[in-house]
């Protein structure tokens, strides 16, 4: 096992990475090795998808499947070895189909098929023990001694960034947003990484290209969400339980939230959002569901306490899932799509009867708790509507600085930095936030600046797209570049979606971003130095020191 993709990876004097019997996320070495194998076979599919396009073959099913299955290898998504193996076998079947079609098309045209790499034609053994044995030779650090840590770090930056992009592609696809050109570029990157590139410059370019691609993907996802559910509007959300039977919906997939709301209507079941689903309350399409009563709990790392205390079933529509046996709620948590945990019921299709029956069989909350509210829904439309007022306040000198403080949450104590920073920013600053990192401070009272709330929850992590739109609009209004705005980005990362958003921001030329709580384990000091040199990227220090530097700039 070698896995270094998340922020909590093990650090020993020998280096960073989970290399023992179990990773810090709870992933076993077997699952980790099988995920490496899955990535290897998916890259083979992409190699053929790329080749097939040269003879006019574009397979939408394959284009959808590769990012979907790739998504299963993100942190806290799928811990089920059997399903990972199934994904791999299905990937190989797609590869074989594409290969046959490609070679037939070549024969038809009288041209020789391109000579593709060994990686393209890897044949999955029948026996699982041999698969696992092969998987070990596919460990991502397999040739570290030969290529060095910097090249390995760049490869991993690309691979993990691409994983994040794949996750957003899948979220967009669920909402009907696909794009053959985006898929082609995705396959190009997969195929490029399959060749084990060793040159720094092409790898660095690949990382930037992945960032650019993800900007398009976030745009697609934004379109999918707003076309389907309307543009978010600022909405107060109760963060406390109300009396009655209950279902909790976590993850990122709004489509699942809608299905659950439709199927529970009139059944006397209250629906709660959790984690990254909180911004769902702001979409107009969900306003009609009065049984969408609030948000329960906070960020993913608190599941084992919060879910354990939730008196109803829980649906994990995407990441992040952690061991439900801790807290003993494995019998009432349900996974969807690419999410998996061994022994946990997986709900396929659009029928949530099993979840609803479970909710009806459980007591639910026995009493109302005193409501406590947070406000969400400041996505780009709402921000644009507020922009004239914001600009007026900036010109009047009442708003002097914008902070974007957000990203992933996690359980490291160093993450209190983000709470302290949000509390410490000057009162004439606005704070934009997004993703589950918001839970570090979204229950605090920040007040307003002449009617403009000082804390603006933009939405999910992919709604970084909205924050970028606001920055572009402000830059246009003030006739300057985004980097000239009094805007500071202080991001928290945990997994691969955050990596690709960072790549997107860097690719767009955003400078002086601060990232924490620690540097990614796969980035060497040299690579961090290069990112600092080229983009001014910095690691967080202390809230006081960083604030002083930010405000003095």
């Amino acid at each position, binding site marked *: 096992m070698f896995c270094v993709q998340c922020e909590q990876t093990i650090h*020993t004097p020998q280096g960073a990475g989970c290399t*023992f*019997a179990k990773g810090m996320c709870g992933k076993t070495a077997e699952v980790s090795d099988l995920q490496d194998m899955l990535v290897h076979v998916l890259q083979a599919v992409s190699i053929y998808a790329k080749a097939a396009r040269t003879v006019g073959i574009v397979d939408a099913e394959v284009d959808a499947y590769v990012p979907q299955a790739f998504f299963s290898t993100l942190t806290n998504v799928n811990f089920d070895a059997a399903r990972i193996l199934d994904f791999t076998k299905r990937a190989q079947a797609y590869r074989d189909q594409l290969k046959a079609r490609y070679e037939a098309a070549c024969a038809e045209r009288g041209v020789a098929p391109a000579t593709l790499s060994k990686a393209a034609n890897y044949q999955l053994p029948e026996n699982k023990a041999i698969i696992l044995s092969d998987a*070990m*030779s596919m460990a991502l650090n397999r040739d570290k001694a030969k290529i060095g840590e910097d090249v390995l770090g760049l490869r991993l930056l690309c691979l993990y960034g691409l994983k994040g992009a794949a996750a957003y592609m899948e979220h967009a696809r669920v909402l009907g947003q696909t794009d053959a050109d985006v898929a082609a570029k995705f396959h190009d990157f997969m195929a490029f990484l399959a060749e084990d590139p060793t040159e720094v410059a092409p790898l660095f370019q690949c990382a930037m290209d992945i960032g650019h691609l993800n900007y398009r993907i976030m745009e697609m996802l934004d379109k999918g969400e707003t076309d389907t559910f309307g543009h978010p509007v600022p909405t107060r959300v109760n963060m406390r339980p109300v009396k009655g039977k209950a279902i909790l919906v976590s993850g990122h997939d709004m489509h699942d939230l809608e299905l659950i709301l439709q199927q529970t209507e009139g059944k006397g079941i209250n629906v709660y959002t959790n984690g990254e689903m909180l911004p769902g309350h702001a979409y107009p399409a969900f306003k009609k569901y009065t049984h969408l009563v609030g948000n329960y709990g906070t960020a993913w790392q608190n599941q084992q*306490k919060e879910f354990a205390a939730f008196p109803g079933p829980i649906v994990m529509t995407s990441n992040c899932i952690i061991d439900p046996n*801790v*807290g003993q709620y494995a019998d009432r948590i349900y996974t969807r799509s690419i999410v998996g945990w061994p022994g946990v019921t997986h709900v396929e299709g659009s029928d949530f009867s099993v979840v609803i029956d479970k909710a009806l069989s459980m007591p639910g909350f026995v009493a109302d708790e005193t409501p406590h509210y947070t406000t969400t829904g400041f996505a780009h439309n709402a921000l644009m509507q507020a922009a004239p007022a914001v600009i007026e306040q900036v010109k009047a000198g009442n708003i002097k600085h914008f902070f974007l403080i957000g990203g992933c949450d996690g359980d490291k104590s160093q993450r209190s930095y983000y709470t302290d920073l949000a509390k410490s920013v000057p009162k004439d600053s606005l704070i934009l936030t997004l993703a589950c990192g918001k839970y570090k401070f979204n229950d605090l009272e920040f007040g307003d600046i002449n009617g403009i709330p000082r804390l603006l929850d933009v939405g999910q992590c992919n709604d970084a797209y909205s924050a970028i739109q606001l920055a572009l609009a402000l830059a246009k209004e003030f006739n300057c570049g985004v980097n000239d705005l009094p805007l500071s980005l202080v991001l928290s990362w945990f997994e691969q979606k955050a990596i690709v958003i960072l790549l997107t921001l860097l690719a767009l030329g955003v400078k002086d971003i601060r990232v924490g709580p620690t540097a990614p384990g796969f980035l060497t000091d040299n690579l961090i130095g290069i990112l600092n040199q080229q983009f001014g990227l910095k690691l967080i220090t202390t809230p006081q020191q960083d604030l002083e530097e930010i405000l003095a700039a």
Partner: protein
Amino acid sequence: MNSITDTGLLPLWQGESPLRCIGRHEETPDSATFVLASDQPVRFAYRPGQFILVNVEIDGKKHCRAYSLCSSPSRPDKLAITVKRVPGGLVSNWLLDHLQPGQLVAAGAPAGEFYLQTEAVPQEVVLLSSGCGITPMLSMSQWLLDNGGRTTIRFIHSARDLENVIFREELLSLASRYENFHLELVLSRGGPNPSRLTQARLAELVPNVQGAQAYLCGPQEYMDQSADWLQQMGFPADQIFKEDFSPAAAQSCAVTDAYFQLEVPKFGKNTTISEGETLLDALEREGLPIIGACRTGVCGACKCKVTSGQVTSTSESSLTPDEIAAGYVLACSTRAKSDLSVEL
């Protein structure tokens, strides 16, 4: 097409694929060496002195323990571990009672911070071991001898008697074949001159400390005492390497009938922990959120804070002095000595 056969170079074995026991040698009345190989063509790469994690399922429950490799990476086609029977040694005793040639055993990648500094081998290496601590020393010796260097090896091993010297025949054979391999067995019982290692005797056995390195493996008190003597003899502290985790020592902790209260307030848990049980085992048994990755006090995954109570730990290797002062421990290497309150 199979990637293993296509690469030309045999793929590196990185653990967690089953290994087949291809040989078993009874070393002493209570220890045996197991020779392990992969069914697939692989090469084993590690540093002399490192350990592997062996995973076994006993009564439906998975257990994982670390065993130092006694084989040398200079012979990369197979691995070997030596296991000693110890009171309460669940996995060790199970292996001795059950593992036979032909059977498969799950294992993890070689790991550990105690290894021979192969990048800069000195003129003289002092290998000091006691009991089962001899295993990494054989690996280091074999590597040095296989690589043809002229390093003087002073192999000083303490055991109860000759019958309980693990690798006895092999050590005697090495001593007879290599001029630079100096073997000294310090036997506390039996034989014509029963004795124990003393500072004076150590000084006689190690006449030259200039440019030498020392490696120590055995019970904690043995290593602490020996390290102290070596420093008094002029050995620089940074040239003395100790195995911070001693599997033998850890597993030889007697399982007693003493039970203590274990409280984890954040999760509303109140349970008991026996004196012979690691804190990690107890926390896992209660379904609490703690990750046991290496289970040998190396990786730091199971770091947690003891807010009240007394514990004994066999490893603090990944903890900072501030963390140790604040009460942090590695749960896999920690046992209770009183009622405990723990923060996760």
